[in-house]
């Protein structure tokens, strides 16, 4: 996958000013964007998904323009074909596991699922070992089950690119490593390009083919695997926030 990201976005909140100024290209299928809390990682991902419109720049996947400020092009999020896994998973609390996975497969907003869609939901339930939980609500699930449901929901629509916002941060440490292994297997199976953002060096080692480091709204480092040994902890910009508490971009 080829990805072009040129984003300029100014944010103003309570007297504080933040400028995101990203300019990068990649042809990697496993890009990890790494940086401390508040560096602009989530904002970058939100621009790519179409939740937030940059002030200037251009976003393109495989040559198809998703956003171009100069030509006033901004493809709406629903037409971008980009799957998004939220840090807190953002599962629909009023729908069951099966309902969450099938939500995107309904044709209208009232019609029931057709046979193909129902088969797709069954496939995803089986693949993510969620068959027994199909009628459970998100509030009744464990962290790992929520994450699986969220991945299954995003993948059910066959996106061309998967975005993951700190996908392991909300899990307890023991579970985190297991879910990383599961995720690597899954990626092999789906052969789906992904962009993952994280402030956890462990995610880098396992998941990245290409690394972009963002600090204070700018790309400070961009390199392909294998990474220099000192990269994850070396640079001062790579401070890891202790405790792994949720990081939200400014």
């Amino acid at each position: 996958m080829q990805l072009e990201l040129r984003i300029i976005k100014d944010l103003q909140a309570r007297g504080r000013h933040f400028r995101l100024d990203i300019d990068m290209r990649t042809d990697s299928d496993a890009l990890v964007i790494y940086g401390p809390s508040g560096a602009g990682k989530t904002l970058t991902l939100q621009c790519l998904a179409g939740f937030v419109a940059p002030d200037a720049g251009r976003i393109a996947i495989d040559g198809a323009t998703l956003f171009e400020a100069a030509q006033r092009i901004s493809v709406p999020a629903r037409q971008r074909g980009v799957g998004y896994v939220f840090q807190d998973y953002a599962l629909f609390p009023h729908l069951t596991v099966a309902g969450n996975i099938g939500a995107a497969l309904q044709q209208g907003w009232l019609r029931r699922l057709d046979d193909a869609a129902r088969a797709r939901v069954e496939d995803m339930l089986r693949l993510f070992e969620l068959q027994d939980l199909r009628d459970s609500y998100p509030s009744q699930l464990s962290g790992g089950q929520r994450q699986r449901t969220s991945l299954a929901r995003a993948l059910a629509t066959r996106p061309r690119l998967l975005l993951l916002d700190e996908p392991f941060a909300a899990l307890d440490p023991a579970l985190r490593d297991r879910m990383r292994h599961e995720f690597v297997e899954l990626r092999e199976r789906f052969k789906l390009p992904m962009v993952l953002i994280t402030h956890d060096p462990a995610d880098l080692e396992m998941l990245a083919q290409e690394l972009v480091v963002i600090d204070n709204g700018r790309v400070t480092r961009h390199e392909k695997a294998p990474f220099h040994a000192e990269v994850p902890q070396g640079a001062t910009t790579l401070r890891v926030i202790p405790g792994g508490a949720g990081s939200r971009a400014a």
Partner: protein
Amino acid sequence: MIGDATVPLLLSLKVAGWATLLALVAGVSFGYLLARVRFFGREVLDAALTLPMVMPPTVLGYYLLVLLGKRGPVGAWLQESFGINLIFTWQGAVIAAALVAFPLVYKAARAAFEDIDTNLERAGRSLGFSEAKVFFRVTLPLAWHGILAGAMLAFARALGEFGATLMVAGSLPGRTQTLSIAIYEAVQAGDDASANSLVIIASVICIIVLVVAGRVLQGGYRRAFRY
């Protein structure tokens, strides 16, 4: 004795039902608009929409009378275009009750919409939902119990409406004389027997509404939303 009460009772239920429906549609629309769209003068509009809750009902009734009367701007237009006259009709009572009950739905709806995690709506969009589908499949279902609570209060408020209704619709027995107005008339006429039965009926209805509202809010539906 109860027979005397059925006419004003049914009229009250009819007026309150339609008024709640009107307040619900308008309250949800304005609640969504002010919760989601930032525009200049948003909080001024919010204050204006909340005004009916704090203003004396007689003042509201007077405004409506001026607006909807034969010489009023809206009233004259309705009369000329459609031959509709709202003053001293049960439909006029509906308008008066809806106006008084509106802020209860609006406030509840706005708070309910603002409570929703915007990432849930974004999740819908990233899954390919149209804006209409996001609203009807994500936003509205999540806001619904808050809106319903507001609608229950609005119904109770509309049922008890007195001042604005009396100003706009008067007190025509069998046509615009609602339960609360009938009580006033009975007391004025010294008809204590009628007043007693009407008062008991009104009290029972209010208790029923509160019990139902409590059931709706504490039912399993709400529990499913808790993380």
